Structures are given as structure tokens and as C-alpha cells.
């Protein structure tokens, strides 16, 4: 059975939340917020046996009144890790991911 993480754009309580993308968790090799000129992107890497690595890049907007870019990177990575492990252990085909407070996922680049 395929399982997915649905990436939502804003925190769970946001009434205008939108689904930005879906991550097939069986194919995940790695995930990480990366510092770029954007300045932050959350990148999910996919790969496997005899495969070239591919990725999804999500643009991230940080409210620096709430947290710095470095704090945002750590909190986002930890939050996604929790969701990923929850999805791996659970039986639901879809697990929702919501970014931490102060971080918005704006687009799948």
C-alpha cells in the first residue's frame, strides 16, 4: 500500500490552509531545510535501488519576528521527522503535515 504525507501550507489552525504537495514516503531518502538564496527551501530527496536521486523543493517563508532562519530550519526538520515516523508506523494511507508556527510553505518550486 502506498502512503503519502500531505504538505500543508500553514499551521493546523489556519482556516485557509492549502495542500501544497504530497510526499510518497516509501521513496524518501532524506529531507532537510536548506539555506539558499530564497532563503529557505525544504527539500525532500527520493531515491532507491539503482535510481538517480530526485527531489521536491518547497519554498518556505519564515516570520523572523517569531523565529530566526536557523531556528526555523531546525523546528521544521524536527516537525517533518515526527510526521514521517508517525506515517511510517501508522496504518493511514495519508498523514497530514503542518509547518510549525512562524513558518509558511508557500509553493512547490
Amino acid at each position, binding site marked *: 500500500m502506498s502512503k503519502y504525507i500531505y504538505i500543508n501550507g500553514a499551521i493546523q489552525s489556519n482556516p485557509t490552509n492549502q495542500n501544497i504537495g504530497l510526499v510518497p514516503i516509501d521513496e524518501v531518502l532524506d529531507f532537510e531545510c536548506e539555506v539558499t538564496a530564497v532563503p529557505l527551501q525544504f527539500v525532500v530527496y527520493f531515491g532507491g535501488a539503482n535510481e*538517480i536521486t530526485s527531489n521536491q523543493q518547497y519554498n518556505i517563508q519564515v516570520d523572523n519576528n517569531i523565529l530566526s532562519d536557523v531556528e526555523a530550519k531546525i523546528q521544521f526538520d524536527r516537525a517533518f521527522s515526527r510526521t514521517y515516523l508517525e506515517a511510517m508506523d501508522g496504518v493511514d494511507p495519508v498523514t497530514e503535515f503542518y509547518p510549525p508556527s512562524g513558518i509558511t510553505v508557500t509553493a512547490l518550486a
Partner: protein
Amino acid sequence: MSKIGIVRDSVSVDKPVRLENINKIETTVNKIAINYTAQVNVNNSEVFILLSNPAPLVYTGAYIRERVLKWIKDGLASNSTLTLNDYLDKIVPTQVGVIGGQTTGQIITAVDSTAACAATPNIDVALEVSGGGDPIIGTGIYLVNGTTPTGPVAPGNYALAIDTKQYFITVNSASNISFIEICPLLLDFVYNLANLSKPINNGNPDAIAFNIAGGSPFGGPGIPTYVDYYFQGFTPSFGGFGFPTTDPNDIAACNVFGPTENNVFGLDNGAWPVGLINNGTTNVPNFAALDVAFGVKLADSDVANFTNAQLYISFDFNANGGVIADSTFVPFQIQFSQVPAFTGSPGGGIPGFGDGTATFSSAMGIPGPPDAFTQLFRNGVYFPGGSSLIGTANFATGTFADFDPNTGIVMIVLQPACL
């Protein structure tokens, strides 16, 4: 559902690592590389785990390999998700995952900011940052061979060089940057075009000269070539009609076989800006009213050699009283179709070079081709003699060299004793 294990990185993020379909595992005292594709390549489904190893003689690569294999074996047999950290005793994983966007640079240990900014880093590293800009606190940094990680950077203070910029950084035990300070740009030479007026003679310390393609840009009607723009009605010193020499070779430019009118300061030289100021017949700019200066940072400020020197350009040197530290110098790097050609350029190009735009367009407002600067700047450059502003390097004569307009770096010195 595929089996995974967990590796907890230095900031307590639990990273998943797939335990199935592994093709190859490579371990050293500072690194675990797991390949899911037989052909090893950074882009071929490869996961790195960099390790802070407190006792490499005890925790050898063979020991680490044995522990990784046991973790995989246990993980495949267990109903739980097992964590590699629990198998590694006092070894601490610092960075985990696929190598994504990275920027390469060099480091060397430095006791303080002053030492760091004067140092010449030579140990290859990569930083987990891409897209330009300065690294921020929290950026991961690791040792590399080429672009392949070889291990974390030991905690301490370092000079860090990335492209033309240098920093003083502190790296923490997690191989992340915990402090960063941008070094001020230290230039060995500044050539202030505001000091250039006709006649410019040999010995003028500001007389930098660039070889130019006289027949470029080829922009069509209304877009004059360099020669058309500056040398209408030019009469060669030997009489008759002709054009100035805008792209002299080093033999001619430096009087190697005896005096020639094509030399840097000669009557038939049309290179920019010296030849133009001395011999131009139309549109000759008054650099005293413009603000253009070039800078050079030698590869070693104590060695009189321009090889690998970096060229810079500034548009506010005079506005800041001729103080380098208060001015903005950016690398003199010409990129195809880049507008502005240089950060801080008031007109997009260089004041006093064509109409000051990035396309050398005419006063009629007809834009030149996007690659005008790429066409115009050739490799030849003349540096007048002088002494380094920051080191002991001294040039008794001028130097004629080839530089790469794309990087602004001097590739080879053709005549170390030129005029």
C-alpha cells in the same frame, strides 16, 4: 512497507535511513556512506553520515562498519525502528543525508579575526548553502574531497574563503557555523581613473589598461563599435587612414623588440582607458567627473606576481574620500547578458565606457546586444608598477598579463617587466 532505521543528527533531528536494497557501505573514522545504487556517485541514491569521532584509534573504520552492519541486521529483524546512535558508543553523527545544494570553499585555522582575514585558507570544505549570499549561523560545514564529504570540521576558529570573500568563523562540535564575521576587503592596488588625464605617461600609478575588441559590439544600425565611438577621424602616427590598436599583444604593448607606437602609452594605442584618453578623438570621457576605480588583490601580498590576482571595480571610491574600507569593490566579472554588469553600477555598465550601460549602446538610445561586454573585453590587461598597499610585494615596472573576464582572475603573466 520498507524498513528504516534512524540516525539522530547533531541538532536532534531523527533522520530516516532505508535499510533495504543497500548496495554498498563505505566507512572511515569520520564517515559512513550508504549506496543504494551499485555505481557510486553523489547523485546516485547515496546517503552520508558524517561522524565526530573522539577516538579514531579505538573507533576505527572497521569498528564503525561492524556496528553499522549490526544496526542494519537488527533493524531488519526488529518490529521497532532502531537508532544507529545507540550502536556507536561515543561517536556522534553530525550531518546525515543526501548531499544537496552546497557551496565549496577553503578553511584554515585562525586564532582571531585579524589572523583569519589575513590568512590564505587551503583546506577544501563544503557548506550546506546554495544560491549565493553569505553563510548564516547554523550552516553545516564539512570537509570534502572534490565535492564528496570526507568528515566533519573539528570545533574551533577558522578563516573561511568562498570565491572572492573571506570570513572569520567558529565551528561548533556539531560541525555547524556558530559565529561568522565578514572580513573587510584588503586590496593590494587601487587604480583610480579619476587621476587619469591626457597625457598619461609611463610611470603613472593609476594607468591600468584593458585590451578591447575595437570592432565590437556588432549591434547593428545605431550601435557604434568601440573604435567608431571613440576614434572617428583617427590618424595613425605613421600617417594616412587607419585605426588605433585596441588589442595589442604583449610584444607590442611592452616594447619587447624596441619602441612601438602601439605600446600602452604610444600614439597608436586605443586600449581602455589609457589609450583612449591619450589618443581618442571623440566622446572621450572626463574621468575626473566620474567615479570609477579598479582594485587588485594579489594571490600573495608579499610576492610580486600578478598570477591568480583578482580584479575588482568600484563606483564609489571617490565618493568615499578614496578610502578602500568605506568603498564598495565588487569582483570585476563579466557575465553574459548580465544587467547591471556589476553590482552598484550607476548606469548598468561602466561610466566612461560607451554610454555607461551594460550594452555599450549609443547616445541614440538604441540598446546594444546583450553580450556587448563579453565581446568588448579581451584578455589583455596592463598593470602599472608600484608597491602593495598591504604587503611587501613591489613591482619596479609595469606588468602585462592575460585575465579571464568571466572570473576577473589573472590567468598568466605574459610580460613581468613591461615598460
